[in-house]
């Protein structure tokens, strides 16, 4: 199927001479939730701003639903909704006036019933006549989302949607994102909260210093790069790892009560079976065991640091 967004060889050099994007190639699939993950200054906002028409690219092309964002900007932009990173509102307008304005701006005929539903979904309906000035920060952010949805976009960009957002709004926002996806809307969100990408996304792209380092199905990514650890809680503490076990990737916990085995879950043979057999032969008994896998966060940190594979693995919880 044709990707809903395809970015090819996109570069951006700001007037300051700074190369914010260095040849981005990226395809977003129709109907997916795509998380663009990267540290501050990686170029996430720049990339989104170019796709939405707010920043002029230096070179390269972007197609949105098959339309060139520059040559066919009307067709491209009418498909896209954007919730920018920074809150910016017309303070003296009412909530209702501002969403009506947004819908009109995108060339859609009035549809009050639809806008009412959007406001209700975002718990803004009872605030519709309030001026935006009088709303709390969280409510203002909801208004930004309502504006982005006012013209029924097929593609929704959420730039750092949960930065500094309270728990309730965060939950509402994810509910909304799931609902939108169920209705066929493609969602692209940027974040530097890894849990967010891990929780929400179908696919994850990692961007650093203006380059896409990796794009991968979330599960594949987790599996591919996720080193696992098997922890064996011993019946009797050991003083050291015996020489017979030296060839194995084993560590002994500080108190000697646990053996920690690190393996690659992707490999044909994880070595678990033979390890367990050998322990049995050596008479090392264990009373319990659990496995843990590396979180996306560690994968991310290691990629960004240009380490091939994470070494020290921390537990994210016993997902055996």
């Amino acid at each position: 199927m044709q990707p809903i967004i395809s970015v090819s060889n996109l570069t951006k050099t700001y007037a300051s001479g700074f190369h914010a994007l260095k040849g981005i190639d990226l395809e977003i699939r129709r109907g997916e939730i795509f998380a663009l993950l990267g540290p501050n200054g990686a170029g996430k906002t720049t990339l989104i701003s170019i796709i939405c028409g707010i920043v002029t690219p230096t070179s390269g092309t972007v197609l949105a639903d098959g339309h060139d964002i520059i040559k066919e900007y009307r067709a491209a932009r009418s498909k896209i909704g954007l919730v920018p990173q920074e809150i910016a509102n017309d303070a003296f307008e009412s909530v209702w006036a501002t969403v009506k304005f947004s819908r009109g701006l995108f060339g859609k005929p009035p549809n009050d019933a639809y806008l009412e539903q959007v406001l209700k979904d975002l718990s803004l309906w009872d605030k519709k006549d309030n001026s935006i000035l009088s709303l709390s920060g969280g409510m203002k952010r909801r208004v930004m989302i309502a504006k982005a949805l006012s013209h029924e976009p097929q593609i929704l960009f959420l730039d750092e949607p949960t930065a500094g957002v309270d728990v309730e709004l965060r939950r509402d926002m994810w509910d909304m994102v799931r609902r939108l996806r169920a209705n066929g809307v493609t969602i692209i969100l940027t974040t530097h909260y890894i849990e967010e990408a891990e929780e929400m996304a179908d696919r994850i792209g990692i961007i650093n210093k203006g380059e896409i380092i990796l794009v991968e199905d979330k599960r594949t990514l987790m599996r591919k790069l996720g080193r696992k650890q098997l922890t064996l809680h011993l019946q009797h503490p050991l003083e050291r790892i015996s020489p017979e076990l030296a060839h194995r990737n084993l560590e002994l916990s500080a108190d000697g009560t646990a053996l920690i085995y690190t393996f690659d879950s992707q490999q044909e043979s994880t070595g678990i079976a033979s390890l367990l057999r050998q322990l049995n032969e050596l008479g090392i008994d264990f009373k319990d065991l659990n496995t843990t896998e590396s979180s996306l966060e560690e994968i991310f940190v290691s990629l960004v640091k240009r380490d091939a594979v994470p070494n020290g693995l921390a537990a994210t919880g016993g997902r055996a």
Partner: protein
Amino acid sequence: MNTYGLLAIYRFEMARWFRTLVQSVLSPVISTSLYFVVFGAAIGSRMAQIDGVSYGAFIVPGLIMLSILTESISNGSFGIYMPRYSGTIYEVLSAPLSPFEIVTGYVGAAATKSVLLGLIILATARLFVPFEIAHPFWMVTFLVLTSITFSLFGFLIGIWATGWEKLQIVPVLVVTPLAFLGGSFYSISMLPPLWQKIALFNPVVYLISGFRWSFYGISDVAVGVSLAMTFLFMIICLAIAWWVFRTGYRLKA
């Protein structure tokens, strides 16, 4: 053509004006009334007629032009500067709107306000002095053309400005002096010969002269020249606006 989008901008700008209607309308009405009290009644009663027109009536077109120029520039510049300042411009830039539609929305609203204001001042003036309008069609034409042109000029200032001070600089340092020196309160022919020549470099002279002609049939320069100069200025502003959107100057990084 994104008509809904254009109308959204236009209505948004008009709504802002209506919210502050009293302030938007009352202040120019009061200041115009003051001009009439001072220049029309107090000083004007001691002034001779100019080309057969009483001084009070003579200054009406000039006063309207003066207000139109300042209001057009202020509305035109504020309309686009405000979203740039608050950051809401992102939405306009990301909307499926052509530069023409964006300019028409903002400038159209600013010009509408100016035209309405001009008519209000005209009605206010009528309370103070009796006058007739010899060429109503041309009066409206000059009013509308000037409103559009200077709203567009204001729009460009609003794009160029990087702070509130800059927004004020052009109106205060350039336009107000030119408007005062442009024959609002006197006929250019009353100046010494050298200054008459210098005055012809002041674009506002042509606006006021043409506008006054539409009232009383008297003018400092030929009406055709006034009209041509107004169009020329409008075309220059349009060309700059075209360049602004083509390059994204101060709008897009």
